[in-house]
């Protein structure tokens, strides 16, 4: 059974088409990234998948159940990290989680476990007002994973965070993936998508223009097929990546003269630009 299944979703707001015939599925233990510029419809799609918006066309399924028929019990299998934090600023970290623990009927130990997991246990008595942006982000991740959901939705989880906090959050997500959680992630950060996601879908003007592993997508658009070699004397040259040039590369390696080798395959960002003519902002 797929963790998430999206079949032919189309959605318009005020006659403006936001999503057009979107289809994909996500397996358990998979991190799936939906990439697109701001306003591409990523958040709308999350809202449709979790049953908050009824689509104009198509169906979505979460853990085998139609999103529009999710029961209270089904929702306990979902974790949500959305664009708005939705935290109670005057309450402590503990009290914020306590509310959701009560809603999910969890024991207090689960709150402590989640706070330890995101390394906020020592700050549990601090009010949300006193937390940094990164700490707030980790707190909402704690809130989302506290009840051990099978499917986790993250809408731009590292947007505006410093690299250290971003790395910490990536480690948390990879740990959850190992435990079998299906993770649906929206982002416009290419590096994040490349390093974290098993598969990505590129969303532009309501259409999925590519859907595959980041490596496969980048390789598909590697039209140059070259490698750039930098030697130890800082000389840099580019050769075609083919049989004829293998000897050149071999000789450089034998003489231990290579400082670095870079292949010419494009990044997800440059693929997106080449396909759409616009940047992912």
């Amino acid at each position, binding site marked *: 059974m797929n963790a998430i299944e999206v079949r032919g979703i189309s959605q318009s707001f005020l006659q403006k088409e936001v999503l057009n015939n979107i289809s994909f599925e996500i397996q358990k233990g998979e991190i799936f990234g939906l990439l697109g510029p701001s306003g591409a419809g990523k958040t709308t799609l999350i809202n449709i998948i*979790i049953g*908050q918006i009824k689509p104009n066309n198509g169906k979505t399924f979460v853990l085998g159940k139609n999103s529009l028929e*999710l029961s*209270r019990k089904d*929702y306990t299998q979902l974790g*949500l990290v*959305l*664009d*708005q*934090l*939705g*935290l*109670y*600023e*005057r*309450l402590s970290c503990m*009290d914020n989680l306590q*509310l*959701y623990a*009560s*809603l*999910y*009927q969890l024991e207090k130990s689960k709150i402590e476990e989640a706070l330890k997991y995101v390394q906020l246990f020592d700050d549990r008595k601090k*009010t949300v007002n006193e937390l940094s942006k990164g700490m707030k982000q980790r707190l909402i991740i704690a809130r989302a994973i506290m009840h051990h959901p099978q499917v986790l939705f993250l809408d731009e989880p590292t947007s505006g965070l410093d690299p250290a906090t971003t790395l910490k959050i990536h480690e948390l997500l990879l740990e959850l993936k190992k435990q079998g959680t299906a993770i649906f992630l929206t982002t416009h950060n290419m590096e994040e998508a490349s390093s974290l996601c098993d598969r990505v879908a590129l969303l532009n003007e309501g259409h999925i223009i590519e859907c595959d592993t980041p490596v496969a997508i980048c390789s598909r658009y590697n039209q140059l097929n070259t490698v750039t070699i930098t030697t130890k004397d800082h000389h840099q040259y580019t050769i075609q990546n083919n049989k004829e040039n293998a000897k050149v590369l071999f000789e450089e390696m034998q003489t231990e003269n290579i400082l670095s080798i870079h292949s010419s395959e494009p990044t997800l960002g440059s693929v997106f630009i080449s396909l759409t003519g616009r940047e992912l902002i």
Partner: protein
Amino acid sequence: MSYHVIKAIFIKQYKDTLKNISILIQLIMFPAISIVMTSSIQVSEIPSQYFVILFATMYVGMTPIIMISNIMGEEKEKGSLKMLMMSNVKPTEYILGVSLFVMVGCLIGLFVMAMVGGYRGIELITFVGICSLGMLTSIFLGSVIGIVAKDQIASNSLSVPAMLICSFVPMLSMFNENIRHYGGFIYTQQINELLTHSPITSFSLQPFVIIFLNMMVLLGIYIYVFQKRKL
């Protein structure tokens, strides 16, 4: 509807209100003023319960409206309400949890005012009972504003005229016959008159009918707005 969800919302609201001075002050202000005024101004021409009745009427027509609309406005603005809805808290459970907290908070305030006014026994029950009817009506009005308003600023601009009408009309009607005549259609005016003209044996049915009609009209608007806009 689930009891544990309503309880969780109630407890959240209790903890949050304790740290939210602008909301907390709404609960404390009128009981505190009535204590100060009753104990400091004792003139033979003014009945001993005059200030308690005056401020209890204002309390009924102001506090629940401001509290509920503000709480909902802030939750919408911060996205916490959306998060609750996505955690499958039903809108009715949320409104019940918050309303219950506002009702309990206001009842404590009313009880203090009743003590200050020297109400005891059946008088105390009558005083709290009449004010509770008004509070319930104000809660419907506050909820309508909370549903319509998109954020805290909008909830403030909508709740200020509503609470001014509800709380000041009974006071102004003492000085102007026209205001008294038209204000008679407003529930707070009727509550003021019921409290002023106690004892219980002298009550006529008319004020209760007007309060009930106010309540039904607001409940109707509430249901309509709720179905149309949700939360």
